[in-house]
């Protein structure tokens, strides 16, 4: 929070400039770079029309009206991913998480309704699934993640919603079908399993929220006393920050949930309703289930994973995540390439909150490079998880690369469950997300 003593040190001019910067969505540095670059006409290609891609498109279109900006993505429908936990637990109808991409893209953008299947950064071009070669001067990779359900042997994604099979991640349709499975389980009880894979995942809080909200539904619908609940994580903890890990584990155990670590879901027999987990020493354990909430392993999309843009070594290489500098979000080998959103091979944060905070960084640094300067903005790794602990209460946890808590509103204690955090998640975050898409937040 700004201390009054610091505020008083600001000159009136600087304060007014700051206000203008906030209103235009560009920092003072970004405005300076945009002014330097305003006469240039680079071709900027943005790959991916998710939250990061659209938000960057809007900011760039305002900053560089003479630039040619292209968006490569076939998807017409926009998914509000942060709302899927509420769809999969029956709080929202799926229509609430669907929108039209065209509605949020700036008018002066060239929208190539094709999918990028290959990147050729040495020749500054990409190839789409129709064979088109798209050349660029600058590239923003915002392709998101690939859900690798195929890594789980026997898992048929068409079976979600049936025979106790659920997954919040696949799509809004599957989230809605998952609610059918969870609703039935919450009434009848039985053996319930929640999984967490070993790979980096989008919104790492979502599997926890699904477990918490299913617990609440069990209590509401009468199935709690007949349920045997289990959380099988392939990781060695439930949450990246120790205090919150302890809190969640304790809360799960208080509700009779068995928590196991280093157990990776490797196979599912959908008809027999049997899940196979593999422990870290290679042993296999089979469990019959009445509800199985599947969180798929995730990786970068093949177009990135199989290109020179991916990390070639280190712990991000296996998933083929985009090799960007974690501070500037600029590619480590190709200075004209930037990454934003879930595809980035950075230590933490594959959330919409990370997108919200990193988009201005990417835009400022991209403008710097376009205007012949070095990137100046540093991303601190901000991510946020409104951890829903039950219907009506949540914890607003915001932290950075270091794992330090960085609350936007210092008067809200992240360690406390609050109705305010629930109101923010359920009522205010989607309107804020839309403002982010427009490039305002």
């Amino acid at each position, binding site marked *: *929070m*700004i201390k009054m003593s610091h505020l008083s040190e600001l000159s009136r001019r600087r304060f007014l400039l*700051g*206000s203008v910067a*906030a209103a235009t969505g560009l920092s003072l540095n970004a405005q300076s770079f945009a002014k330097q670059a305003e006469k240039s006409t680079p071709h900027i290609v943005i790959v991916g029309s998710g939250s990061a891609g659209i938000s960057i498109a809007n900011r760039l279109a305002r900053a560089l009206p003479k630039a040619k900006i292209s968006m490569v993505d076939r998807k017409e429908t926009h998914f509000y991913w942060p709302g899927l936990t509420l769809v999969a637990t029956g*709080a929202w109808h799926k229509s609430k998480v669907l929108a039209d991409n065209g509605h949020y893209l700036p008018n002066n953008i060239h929208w190539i309704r094709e999918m990028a299947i290959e990147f050729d950064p040495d020749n500054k071009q990409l190839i789409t699934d129709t064979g088109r070669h798209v050349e660029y001067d600058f590239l923003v990779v915002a392709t998101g993640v690939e859900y690798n359900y195929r890594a789980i042997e026997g898992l048929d994604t068409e079976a979600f919603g049936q025979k106790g099979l659920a997954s919040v991640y696949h799509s809004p349709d599957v989230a809605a079908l998952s609610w059918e499975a969870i609703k039935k389980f919450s009434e009848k009880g039985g053996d319930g399993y929640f999984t967490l894979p070993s790979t980096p995942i989008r919104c790492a809080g979502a599997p926890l929220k699904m477990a918490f909200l299913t617990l609440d539904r069990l209590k509401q619908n009468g199935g709690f006393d007949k349920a045997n609940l289990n959380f099988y994580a392939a990781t060695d903890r439930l949450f990246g920050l120790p205090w919150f890990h302890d809190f969640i584990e304790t809360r799960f155990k208080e509700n009779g949930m068995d928590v196991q670590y280093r157990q990776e879901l490797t196979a599912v027999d959908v008809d027999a309703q049997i899940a196979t987990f593999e422990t870290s020493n290679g042993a296999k354990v089979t469990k019959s289930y009445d509800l199985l909430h599947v969180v798929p392993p995730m990786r970068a999309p093949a177009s990135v994973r199989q290109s020179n843009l991916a990390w070639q070594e280190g712990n991000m290489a296996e998933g083929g995540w985009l090799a960007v500098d974690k501070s500037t979000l600029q590619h480590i080998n190709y200075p004209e390439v930037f990454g934003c959103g879930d595809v980035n091979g950075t230590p933490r944060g594959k959330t919409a909150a990370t997108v919200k905070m990193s988009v201005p960084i990417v835009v400022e640094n991209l403008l710097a490079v376009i205007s012949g300067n070095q990137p100046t903005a540093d991303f601190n790794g901000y991510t946020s998880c409104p951890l829903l602990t*039950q*219907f*009506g*209460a949540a914890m607003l946890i915001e932290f950075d690369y270091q794992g330090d808590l960085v609350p*936007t*509103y210092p*008067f*809200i*204690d992240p360690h*406390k*469950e*609050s*109705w*305010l955090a*629930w*109101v923010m998640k*359920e*009522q*205010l975050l*989607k*309107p*804020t997300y*839309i*403002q982010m898409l427009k490039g*305002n*937040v």
Partner: protein
Amino acid sequence: MNELNLTFFMLLGYAQAHWFIVSVFVVGAAILNYLAWVQKGAFFQTELLKLTLRSWTGVALFLFLTIPWMTGSSLALLSYWVDWMLLIVMALGYAFASLFWIYPTLRLYEALKPVDKK
């Protein structure tokens, strides 16, 4: 600045998301106040103001008790001081907004009711 910017766009976005309700409220308030204004006699009347104040208290109390439920939560889950502050601000704020309908409605009722009931 960051939190102020976020709060502003959060509330702007919320208002835009509920544009129909906001529009009905604003247009309705404008019409009611105009109609109340053009009636004979002073616009502000002591007795009506007292009645409006009582109505405002009732609305605020009603909202205080029901807003958590309306947001999918319950009063029982409010255990943190910021929750109570938010609830008080929301209840008083929405109740204040309701005055723009309540007072002109009472004023119109007073002005238009049959003479034998005055």
